């Protein structure tokens, strides 16, 4: 006969310390109730008021966990969770639903769209703490993955500014805003934005943009048959000559030489196979 252990599950006391939790709840009083409790547990708390707000913020914050109400006006929790699951960069962020819906079928619906757990309203704070701890205990520290590689110790604001601005820049490398426009778009100023980029990726906004353009140009040279002039235009250069010069400065070879060398190594690989 097996005996069931009645020992409580124990967690490292600091398992919630410093974890970034996005609280998504449309009722302000409940949102703040949860937020204040999580603050007391040492979490870094972010607030969103519905599913749309959640989807915008989750991409920029990359929280360790999302604690979300199911029934909300506009975009509800189920829809937001479904969209997160469809997005490779977001699907690994655990979502715990909080809902007044008590029927098992409603709970199952939440799990089917990708939530990892469910807390019923009215909730007990200790249960919320334990469920968060269960899903965070095996997660590594709360470092935001910065690209191409993290430099120094970026603050939370650095990461927010970097991710927000990066999304604007990558929408179109051919037509990017100038530094002042970009800074205004993410509600800061040029100097602070450059500082955030230096802290996150070790280069200024335009250093980062130049690098993204060059990396994208490399992909286009290898994966397409576009002319060098077209690729230059695609990544924001007014002339093929300007692009070729900048490319050679960056990689030590011209775009044509780069394409040729990659094509040769590709055909060698094909022959080996």
């Amino acid at each position, binding site marked *: 006969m097996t005996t069931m252990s009645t020992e409580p599950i124990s967690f490292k006391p600091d398992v919630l310390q410093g974890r970034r939790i996005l609280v998504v709840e449309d009722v302000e009083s409940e949102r703040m109730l949860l937020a204040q409790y999580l603050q007391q547990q040492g979490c870094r708390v972010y607030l969103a008021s519905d599913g749309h707000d959640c989807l915008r913020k989750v991409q920029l914050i990359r929280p360790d966990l999302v604690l979300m109400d199911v029934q909300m006006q506009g975009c509800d929790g189920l829809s937001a969770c479904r969209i997160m699951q469809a997005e490779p960069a977001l699907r690994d962020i655990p979502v715990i639903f909080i809902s007044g819906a008590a029927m098992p079928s409603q709970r199952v619906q939440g799990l089917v769209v990708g939530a990892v757990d469910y807390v019923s309203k009215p909730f007990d704070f200790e249960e919320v703490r334990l469920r968060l701890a269960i899903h965070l205990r095996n997660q590594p520290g709360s470092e935001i993955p910065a690209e191409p590689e993290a430099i120094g110790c970026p603050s939370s604001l650095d990461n927010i500014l970097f991710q927000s601005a990066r999304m604007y820049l990558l929408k179109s490398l051919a037509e990017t805003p100038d530094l*002042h426009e970009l800074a205004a778009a993410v509600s800061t100023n040029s100097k*602070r934005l450059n500082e955030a980029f230096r802290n996150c990726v070790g280069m200024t906004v335009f250093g980062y943009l130049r690098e993204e353009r060059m990396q994208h140009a490399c992909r286009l040279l290898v994966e397409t048959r576009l002319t060098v002039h077209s690729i230059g235009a695609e990544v924001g250069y007014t002339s093929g000559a300007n692009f070729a010069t900048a490319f050679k400065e960056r990689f030590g070879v011209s775009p044509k030489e780069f394409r040729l060398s990659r094509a040769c190594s590709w055909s060698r690989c094909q022959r080996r196979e």
Partner: protein
Amino acid sequence: MTKPVGPDELQQPLAMDGTEVLLAEIEPLLNMGALTDLLEWTERLEQEQPQHVDLARRVRELIARGDFEGVRALWQLV
């Protein structure tokens, strides 16, 4: 289409003083609903710019209530 970008130094704006630097940080934090960062921000404002202690306290009270619009409204008056 954007022209190739010149030296980064040309893009640098004029230097700002400590208060301006701090004030410039609050809007992105409000946009992101970054509660913990906002509370830390009020502490920094209080410590680094003692002349703004009252402002820091008022902002902290509003943030603790989740009244971010109230903070924005307060900002219009500063």
